[in-house]
């Protein structure tokens, strides 16, 4: 049986190129979909990273004692709603953090929140506090609270 090797036909260069490109595109797509799960999406607020919103937060805060109760008084002076606060009790070589999320403060408004000694046992007159705002942002479709850096907080002493 005689076979003429040169008469055998393979796929044309055009088809071969298209096949190669298709394989590469499909492989790249699979790798991309797989690797995307390892990239964490940042929290956004008003279509910008929440860190940018933190930079613009402006508020006044103080903690006062009336009788045996302690109150956190806050005035929000910027057009960014504040969702809550981290109250950091500053001690000798120690910072204890207590989160207050049940008192959102709207743009331009003030709020007064009772600080329970059950929640913050260390609170007493003369204690140094750092009050750090928490903003509400979005991660994908989920609302997420995000604490601003300490630099955006206000230091105060309980009076």
């Amino acid at each position, binding site marked *: *049986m005689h076979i003429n090797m040169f008469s055998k036909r393979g796929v044309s260069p055009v088809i071969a190129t298209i096949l190669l490109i298709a394989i590469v595109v499909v492989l790249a797509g699979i790798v991309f979909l*797989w690797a995307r799960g*390892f990239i*964490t999406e940042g929290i956004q607020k008003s279509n910008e990273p929440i860190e940018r919103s933190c930079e613009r937060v402006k508020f006044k805060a103080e903690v006062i004692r009336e009788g045996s109760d302690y109150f956190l008084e806050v005035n929000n002076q910027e057009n960014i709603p504040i969702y809550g606060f*981290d109250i*950091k009790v500053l001690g*000798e*070589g*120690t*910072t*204890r*953090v207590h989160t207050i999320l049940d008192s959102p403060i709207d743009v331009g408004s003030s709020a007064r929140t009772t600080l329970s000694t059950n929640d913050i046992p260390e609170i007493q007159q003369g204690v140094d506090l750092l009050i*750090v705002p928490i903003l509400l942002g979005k991660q994908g479709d989920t609302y997420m609270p995000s*604490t601003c850096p*300490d630099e955006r907080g206000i230091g105060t002493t309980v009076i």
Partner: protein
Amino acid sequence: MILKKGVSPVIATVLLLVLTIVAVSILAAFVVTFVNNSLKNSKECFNELANIRFDDKTGYNCHATNDLEEKRTGFSVRIDGTEIVGFQVTLFSQGIANSYRIEKDAKSSLIRMLDKNFETELEVPDRGGLRTYVADGEYDRIEANPLLRNGALCDTGETIEIDSCLDQNVIDKLFFD
């Protein structure tokens, strides 16, 4: 023999393709699961990498020796991640290193909280919090590796070089026990 017929080229090609796809699928099922599991810890550790650090502002990251030749080393650790439930601290001294796990309510005869005695419960800072620890001995370098909620201990962590304490108030606190 030459007249014997084998499978046609089309069937052979289809068979090869099917075999390849089945082989790749079986391999992928194992490899993808294995790689995913391996990367999961790395990813979580990577996310928490910047969330543990030594805090220089306290002034307690230093070592001292008292009149009785007792040696103490202080270090302040700040945690900013919600997934960090503890850390492994490695204390280096003249080429020798020893590691200790600091977890909630753990006790140690060599490490204590700044204001507590040895062999009392250790604390781990909450997110955004800070604690200062005192180690028995003089160490020149300390490394802290995060211990995550899922039980993983991260390979990479934070390291600090330790110098002698200069503040007498700090030295007094290191030897209060």
